[in-house]
Protein backbone atom coordinates (compact mmCIF):
# COMPACT_ATOMS: atom_id res chain seq x y z
CA UNK A 1 0.00 0.00 0.00
CA UNK A 2 2.75 2.47 0.92
CA UNK A 3 4.34 1.83 -2.47
CA UNK A 4 1.19 2.88 -4.30
CA UNK A 5 0.96 5.98 -2.09
CA UNK A 6 4.61 6.78 -2.83
CA UNK A 7 4.01 6.37 -6.55
CA UNK A 8 0.95 8.65 -6.62
CA UNK A 9 2.62 11.24 -4.37
CA UNK A 10 5.85 11.53 -6.36
CA UNK A 11 4.04 11.39 -9.70
CA UNK A 12 2.03 14.40 -8.52
CA UNK A 13 5.18 16.16 -7.39
CA UNK A 14 6.82 15.51 -10.76
CA UNK A 15 3.76 16.78 -12.57
CA UNK A 16 3.29 19.99 -10.57
CA UNK A 17 6.90 20.63 -9.54
CA UNK A 18 7.61 23.87 -11.33
CA UNK A 19 10.78 25.82 -10.66
CA UNK A 20 13.27 22.95 -10.48
CA UNK A 21 14.52 21.07 -7.42
CA UNK A 22 14.17 23.89 -4.92
CA UNK A 23 10.66 24.72 -6.10
CA UNK A 24 9.80 21.07 -5.58
CA UNK A 25 10.98 21.02 -1.98
CA UNK A 26 7.82 22.62 -0.57
CA UNK A 27 5.72 20.11 -2.51
CA UNK A 28 7.79 17.18 -1.28
CA UNK A 29 7.74 18.46 2.28
CA UNK A 30 4.01 19.15 2.17
CA UNK A 31 3.35 15.56 1.12
CA UNK A 32 5.92 13.46 2.98
CA UNK A 33 5.97 15.40 6.28
CA UNK A 34 2.59 17.09 6.65
CA UNK A 35 0.16 15.05 4.58
CA UNK A 36 1.40 11.49 5.05
CA UNK A 37 3.57 11.90 8.16
CA UNK A 38 6.19 9.56 6.73
CA UNK A 39 8.98 11.46 8.49
CA UNK A 40 9.69 14.39 10.82
CA UNK A 41 10.75 17.87 9.69
CA UNK A 42 14.24 17.21 11.07
CA UNK A 43 14.57 14.02 9.05
CA UNK A 44 13.39 15.86 5.95
CA UNK A 45 15.95 18.64 6.53
CA UNK A 46 18.69 16.01 6.84
CA UNK A 47 17.59 14.56 3.51
CA UNK A 48 17.78 17.98 1.88
CA UNK A 49 21.27 18.46 3.35
CA UNK A 50 22.50 15.14 1.96
CA UNK A 51 20.82 15.86 -1.39
CA UNK A 52 22.71 19.13 -1.65
CA UNK A 53 26.05 17.61 -0.79
CA UNK A 54 25.88 14.67 -3.19
CA UNK A 55 26.14 14.81 -6.99
CA UNK A 56 23.04 14.94 -9.16
CA UNK A 57 19.84 16.97 -9.26
CA UNK A 58 18.41 17.81 -5.81
CA UNK A 59 14.90 16.74 -6.85
CA UNK A 60 16.00 13.22 -7.77
CA UNK A 61 18.31 12.87 -4.78
CA UNK A 62 15.62 13.84 -2.31
CA UNK A 63 12.94 11.69 -3.98
CA UNK A 64 15.20 8.63 -3.76
CA UNK A 65 16.03 9.35 -0.14
CA UNK A 66 12.44 10.15 0.88
CA UNK A 67 11.22 6.92 -0.70
CA UNK A 68 13.79 4.97 1.28
CA UNK A 69 13.09 6.75 4.58
CA UNK A 70 9.30 6.55 4.27
CA UNK A 71 9.37 2.77 3.86
CA UNK A 72 12.10 2.34 6.47
CA UNK A 73 10.12 4.40 9.00
CA UNK A 74 7.07 2.26 8.29
CA UNK A 75 9.05 -0.55 9.89
CA UNK A 76 9.89 -2.51 6.78
CA UNK A 77 13.26 -4.02 5.90
CA UNK A 78 16.06 -2.85 3.66
CA UNK A 79 14.81 -4.59 0.51
CA UNK A 80 11.40 -2.95 0.88
CA UNK A 81 13.07 0.42 1.47
CA UNK A 82 15.11 -0.09 -1.70
CA UNK A 83 11.89 -0.76 -3.61
CA UNK A 84 10.43 2.41 -2.05
CA UNK A 85 13.28 4.52 -3.38
CA UNK A 86 12.90 2.91 -6.84
CA UNK A 87 9.20 3.66 -6.90
CA UNK A 88 9.51 7.29 -5.80
CA UNK A 89 12.40 8.09 -8.18
CA UNK A 90 10.62 6.46 -11.13
CA UNK A 91 7.34 8.21 -10.28
CA UNK A 92 9.10 11.58 -10.05
CA UNK A 93 10.61 11.43 -13.54
CA UNK A 94 7.71 9.68 -15.28
CA UNK A 95 5.70 12.91 -15.82
CA UNK A 96 8.87 14.55 -17.23
CA UNK A 97 9.34 11.66 -19.61
CA UNK A 98 5.74 11.79 -20.84
CA UNK A 99 5.56 15.60 -21.01
CA UNK A 100 8.91 16.16 -22.71
CA UNK A 101 8.22 13.51 -25.34
CA UNK A 102 4.76 14.98 -26.00
CA UNK A 103 6.22 18.47 -26.27
CA UNK A 104 9.02 17.31 -28.60
CA UNK A 105 6.53 15.45 -30.76
CA UNK A 106 3.57 17.77 -30.91
CA UNK A 107 3.77 21.01 -29.04
CA UNK A 108 7.21 22.47 -29.58
CA UNK A 109 5.78 25.06 -31.96
CA UNK A 110 3.17 26.14 -29.41
CA UNK A 111 5.65 26.80 -26.63
CA UNK A 112 6.10 30.41 -27.77
CA UNK A 113 2.36 30.98 -28.22
CA UNK A 114 1.13 34.02 -26.20
CA UNK A 115 -1.39 31.96 -24.22
CA UNK A 116 1.26 29.45 -23.11
CA UNK A 117 3.62 32.30 -22.32
CA UNK A 118 1.03 34.05 -20.13
CA UNK A 119 0.43 30.84 -18.15
CA UNK A 120 4.20 30.62 -17.56
CA UNK A 121 4.24 34.31 -16.63
CA UNK A 122 1.63 33.58 -13.96
CA UNK A 123 3.59 30.61 -12.64
CA UNK A 124 6.90 32.45 -12.21
CA UNK A 125 5.95 34.64 -9.20
CA UNK A 126 4.07 31.72 -7.61
CA UNK A 127 7.21 29.56 -7.74
CA UNK A 128 9.02 32.28 -5.77
CA UNK A 129 6.25 31.92 -3.18
CA UNK A 130 6.72 28.15 -3.14
CA UNK A 131 10.41 28.57 -2.39
CA UNK A 132 9.66 31.09 0.36
CA UNK A 133 7.16 28.61 1.83
CA UNK A 134 9.78 25.84 1.74
CA UNK A 135 12.06 28.07 3.82
CA UNK A 136 9.36 29.08 6.29
CA UNK A 137 8.12 25.52 6.75
CA UNK A 138 11.63 24.45 7.75
CA UNK A 139 11.93 27.13 10.43
CA UNK A 140 10.72 24.79 13.15
CA UNK A 141 11.87 23.98 16.66
CA UNK A 142 13.11 20.62 15.38
CA UNK A 143 15.64 22.46 13.21
CA UNK A 144 16.38 25.46 15.44
CA UNK A 145 15.26 24.44 18.94
CA UNK A 146 13.61 27.23 21.00
CA UNK A 147 14.98 29.83 23.46
CA UNK A 148 12.98 28.09 26.22
CA UNK A 149 13.93 24.53 25.41
CA UNK A 150 17.63 25.05 24.74
CA UNK A 151 18.73 28.67 24.48
CA UNK A 152 22.33 27.74 23.61
CA UNK A 153 21.33 25.57 20.64
CA UNK A 154 18.73 28.12 19.52
CA UNK A 155 21.16 31.05 19.29
CA UNK A 156 23.87 28.90 17.71
CA UNK A 157 21.29 27.80 15.13
CA UNK A 158 20.24 31.39 14.42
CA UNK A 159 23.88 32.35 14.05
CA UNK A 160 24.57 29.44 11.67
CA UNK A 161 21.48 30.39 9.64
CA UNK A 162 22.60 34.02 9.27
CA UNK A 163 26.23 33.08 8.61
CA UNK A 164 25.25 30.62 5.87
CA UNK A 165 22.81 33.10 4.33
CA UNK A 166 25.40 35.87 4.18
CA UNK A 167 28.08 33.39 3.12
CA UNK A 168 26.21 32.30 0.00
CA UNK A 169 24.35 35.50 -0.85
CA UNK A 170 27.08 38.06 -0.26
CA UNK A 171 30.37 36.21 -0.34
CA UNK A 172 29.29 33.52 -2.85
CA UNK A 173 30.97 30.76 -0.87
CA UNK A 174 30.32 27.25 -2.20
CA UNK A 175 27.22 25.80 -0.45
CA UNK A 176 28.88 22.42 0.11
CA UNK A 177 31.76 24.11 1.91
CA UNK A 178 29.25 25.97 4.09
CA UNK A 179 27.37 22.78 4.96
CA UNK A 180 30.65 21.14 5.98
CA UNK A 181 31.58 24.16 8.11
CA UNK A 182 28.15 24.19 9.78
CA UNK A 183 28.52 20.48 10.50
CA UNK A 184 31.91 21.12 12.08
CA UNK A 185 30.44 23.97 14.16
CA UNK A 186 27.68 21.60 15.29
CA UNK A 187 30.23 19.03 16.37
CA UNK A 188 32.22 21.62 18.34
CA UNK A 189 29.35 23.58 19.88
CA UNK A 190 26.32 21.31 20.04
CA UNK A 191 27.81 17.95 20.98
Amino acid at each position, binding site marked *: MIFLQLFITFFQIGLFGFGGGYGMLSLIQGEVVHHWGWMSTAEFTDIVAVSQMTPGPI*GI*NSATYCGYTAV*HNAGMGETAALLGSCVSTFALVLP*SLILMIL*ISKLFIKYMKHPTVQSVFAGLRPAV*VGLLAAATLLLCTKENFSTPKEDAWQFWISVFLFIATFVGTKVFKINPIKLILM*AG*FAGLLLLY
Partner: protein
Amino acid sequence: MFKLFSTFFKIGMFTLGGGYAMIPIIEAEVVDKHKWVTKEEFLDLIAIAQSCPGVFAANISIFIGYRLKKIPGAIITCLGTCLPSFLIILLIAMFFHRFQDNPVVASIFRGIRPAVVALIAVPTFNLAKSAGITWATCWIPIGGALAIWLMGVSPILIILLAAIGGYIYGALIKPTE
Protein backbone atom coordinates in the same frame (compact mmCIF):
# COMPACT_ATOMS: atom_id res chain seq x y z
CA MET B 1 23.10 4.67 -27.94
CA PHE B 2 25.67 3.63 -25.36
CA LYS B 3 27.39 6.97 -25.91
CA LEU B 4 24.13 8.75 -25.01
CA PHE B 5 23.81 6.77 -21.81
CA SER B 6 27.43 7.14 -20.75
CA THR B 7 27.48 10.88 -21.48
CA PHE B 8 24.45 11.60 -19.30
CA PHE B 9 25.61 9.14 -16.65
CA LYS B 10 28.85 11.11 -16.47
CA ILE B 11 26.94 14.38 -16.25
CA GLY B 12 24.76 13.01 -13.44
CA MET B 13 27.75 11.54 -11.66
CA PHE B 14 30.07 14.50 -11.58
CA THR B 15 27.86 17.54 -11.14
CA LEU B 16 27.43 18.94 -7.70
CA GLY B 17 24.96 21.64 -6.82
CA GLY B 18 21.85 20.52 -8.64
CA GLY B 19 20.19 21.14 -11.99
CA TYR B 20 21.28 24.63 -12.92
CA ALA B 21 24.93 24.00 -12.14
CA MET B 22 24.68 21.26 -14.77
CA ILE B 23 23.88 23.58 -17.69
CA PRO B 24 27.47 24.49 -18.66
CA ILE B 25 28.56 20.85 -18.30
CA ILE B 26 25.68 19.54 -20.42
CA GLU B 27 26.43 22.24 -22.98
CA ALA B 28 30.10 21.30 -23.16
CA GLU B 29 29.24 17.63 -23.75
CA VAL B 30 26.18 17.91 -25.96
CA VAL B 31 26.93 21.01 -28.04
CA ASP B 32 30.72 21.35 -28.14
CA LYS B 33 31.98 17.79 -27.88
CA HIS B 34 29.37 15.56 -29.52
CA LYS B 35 27.58 18.22 -31.62
CA TRP B 36 24.20 16.55 -31.03
CA VAL B 37 22.37 19.88 -31.12
CA THR B 38 23.39 23.40 -32.15
CA LYS B 39 23.93 26.14 -29.61
CA GLU B 40 20.67 27.89 -30.61
CA GLU B 41 18.62 24.71 -30.32
CA PHE B 42 20.22 24.05 -26.95
CA LEU B 43 19.23 27.48 -25.63
CA ASP B 44 15.65 26.95 -26.87
CA LEU B 45 15.49 23.56 -25.18
CA ILE B 46 16.79 25.02 -21.91
CA ALA B 47 14.11 27.70 -21.97
CA ILE B 48 11.37 25.09 -22.44
CA ALA B 49 12.85 22.64 -19.92
CA GLN B 50 12.97 25.43 -17.34
CA SER B 51 9.35 26.44 -17.74
CA CYS B 52 8.07 22.87 -17.60
CA PRO B 53 7.43 20.98 -14.37
CA GLY B 54 9.83 18.30 -13.21
CA VAL B 55 13.53 18.00 -12.54
CA PHE B 56 15.33 20.32 -14.91
CA ALA B 57 18.30 18.04 -15.66
CA ALA B 58 15.92 15.14 -16.43
CA ASN B 59 13.84 17.35 -18.71
CA ILE B 60 16.79 18.54 -20.76
CA SER B 61 18.29 15.05 -21.04
CA ILE B 62 14.94 13.63 -22.24
CA PHE B 63 14.70 16.39 -24.87
CA ILE B 64 18.12 15.57 -26.25
CA GLY B 65 17.62 11.81 -26.11
CA TYR B 66 14.33 12.12 -27.98
CA ARG B 67 15.81 14.41 -30.60
CA LEU B 68 18.53 11.89 -31.41
CA LYS B 69 16.92 8.47 -30.99
CA LYS B 70 13.20 9.05 -30.38
CA ILE B 71 11.54 7.32 -27.39
CA PRO B 72 14.30 4.73 -26.68
CA GLY B 73 16.80 7.60 -26.68
CA ALA B 74 14.67 9.61 -24.25
CA ILE B 75 14.44 6.66 -21.85
CA ILE B 76 18.18 6.00 -22.07
CA THR B 77 19.25 9.60 -21.37
CA CYS B 78 16.73 9.93 -18.54
CA LEU B 79 18.05 6.73 -16.98
CA GLY B 80 21.63 7.94 -17.42
CA THR B 81 20.89 11.20 -15.58
CA CYS B 82 18.98 9.58 -12.70
CA LEU B 83 21.01 6.45 -12.06
CA PRO B 84 24.11 8.02 -10.43
CA SER B 85 21.92 10.05 -8.02
CA PHE B 86 19.87 7.02 -7.22
CA LEU B 87 22.83 4.75 -6.50
CA ILE B 88 24.78 7.28 -4.45
CA ILE B 89 21.77 8.26 -2.33
CA LEU B 90 20.85 4.64 -1.78
CA LEU B 91 24.32 3.85 -0.47
CA ILE B 92 24.20 6.84 1.87
CA ALA B 93 20.66 6.04 3.05
CA MET B 94 21.59 2.46 3.94
CA PHE B 95 24.75 3.61 5.68
CA PHE B 96 23.28 6.63 7.46
CA HIS B 97 20.40 4.79 9.10
CA ARG B 98 22.93 2.86 11.19
CA PHE B 99 24.62 6.03 12.46
CA GLN B 100 21.65 8.36 12.78
CA ASP B 101 21.43 8.01 16.54
CA ASN B 102 25.17 8.28 17.12
CA PRO B 103 25.71 11.43 19.28
CA VAL B 104 28.58 12.71 17.11
CA VAL B 105 26.51 12.40 13.90
CA ALA B 106 23.48 13.92 15.65
CA SER B 107 25.47 16.98 16.76
CA ILE B 108 26.89 17.47 13.26
CA PHE B 109 23.38 17.47 11.81
CA ARG B 110 22.16 19.89 14.49
CA GLY B 111 24.67 22.34 13.04
CA ILE B 112 23.86 21.51 9.42
CA ARG B 113 20.06 21.93 9.65
CA PRO B 114 19.93 25.72 10.15
CA ALA B 115 22.52 26.09 7.37
CA VAL B 116 20.33 24.07 5.00
CA VAL B 117 17.35 26.31 5.75
CA ALA B 118 19.53 29.32 4.83
CA LEU B 119 20.62 27.60 1.61
CA ILE B 120 16.96 27.32 0.59
CA ALA B 121 16.27 30.92 1.58
CA VAL B 122 18.97 32.32 -0.74
CA PRO B 123 17.57 30.96 -4.05
CA THR B 124 14.19 32.42 -3.05
CA PHE B 125 15.67 35.91 -3.35
CA ASN B 126 17.70 35.09 -6.45
CA LEU B 127 14.62 33.67 -8.14
CA ALA B 128 12.53 36.69 -7.12
CA LYS B 129 15.05 38.85 -8.92
CA SER B 130 15.15 36.77 -12.11
CA ALA B 131 11.35 36.40 -12.16
CA GLY B 132 11.15 40.19 -12.21
CA ILE B 133 9.11 40.55 -9.02
CA THR B 134 8.17 44.21 -8.43
CA TRP B 135 6.17 46.02 -5.75
CA ALA B 136 3.12 45.53 -7.97
CA THR B 137 3.53 41.74 -8.16
CA CYS B 138 5.14 40.89 -4.83
CA TRP B 139 1.73 40.03 -3.32
CA ILE B 140 1.64 36.85 -5.42
CA PRO B 141 4.69 35.10 -3.88
CA ILE B 142 4.02 36.56 -0.41
CA GLY B 143 0.36 35.55 -0.45
CA GLY B 144 1.22 32.13 -1.82
CA ALA B 145 3.92 31.52 0.77
CA LEU B 146 1.70 32.61 3.67
CA ALA B 147 -1.21 30.47 2.43
CA ILE B 148 1.06 27.41 2.34
CA TRP B 149 2.87 28.19 5.58
CA LEU B 150 0.08 29.40 7.86
CA MET B 151 -3.07 27.94 6.36
CA GLY B 152 -1.66 24.64 5.15
CA VAL B 153 -2.85 25.20 1.59
CA SER B 154 -1.44 22.64 -0.86
CA PRO B 155 1.37 24.05 -3.06
CA ILE B 156 -0.29 22.27 -6.00
CA LEU B 157 -3.39 24.44 -5.54
CA ILE B 158 -1.21 27.58 -5.58
CA ILE B 159 0.40 26.43 -8.82
CA LEU B 160 -2.96 25.75 -10.46
CA LEU B 161 -4.32 29.14 -9.32
CA ALA B 162 -1.21 30.91 -10.64
CA ALA B 163 -1.51 29.18 -14.02
CA ILE B 164 -5.20 30.11 -14.31
CA GLY B 165 -4.41 33.65 -13.11
CA GLY B 166 -1.69 33.98 -15.74
CA TYR B 167 -4.03 32.72 -18.43
CA ILE B 168 -6.84 35.14 -17.48
CA TYR B 169 -4.43 38.06 -17.16
CA GLY B 170 -2.95 37.31 -20.59
CA ALA B 171 -6.29 36.71 -22.28
CA LEU B 172 -8.34 39.55 -20.81
CA ILE B 173 -6.11 42.27 -19.46
CA LYS B 174 -2.75 42.38 -21.12
CA PRO B 175 -1.20 39.86 -23.52
CA THR B 176 2.33 38.86 -22.50
CA GLU B 177 4.83 40.64 -24.64
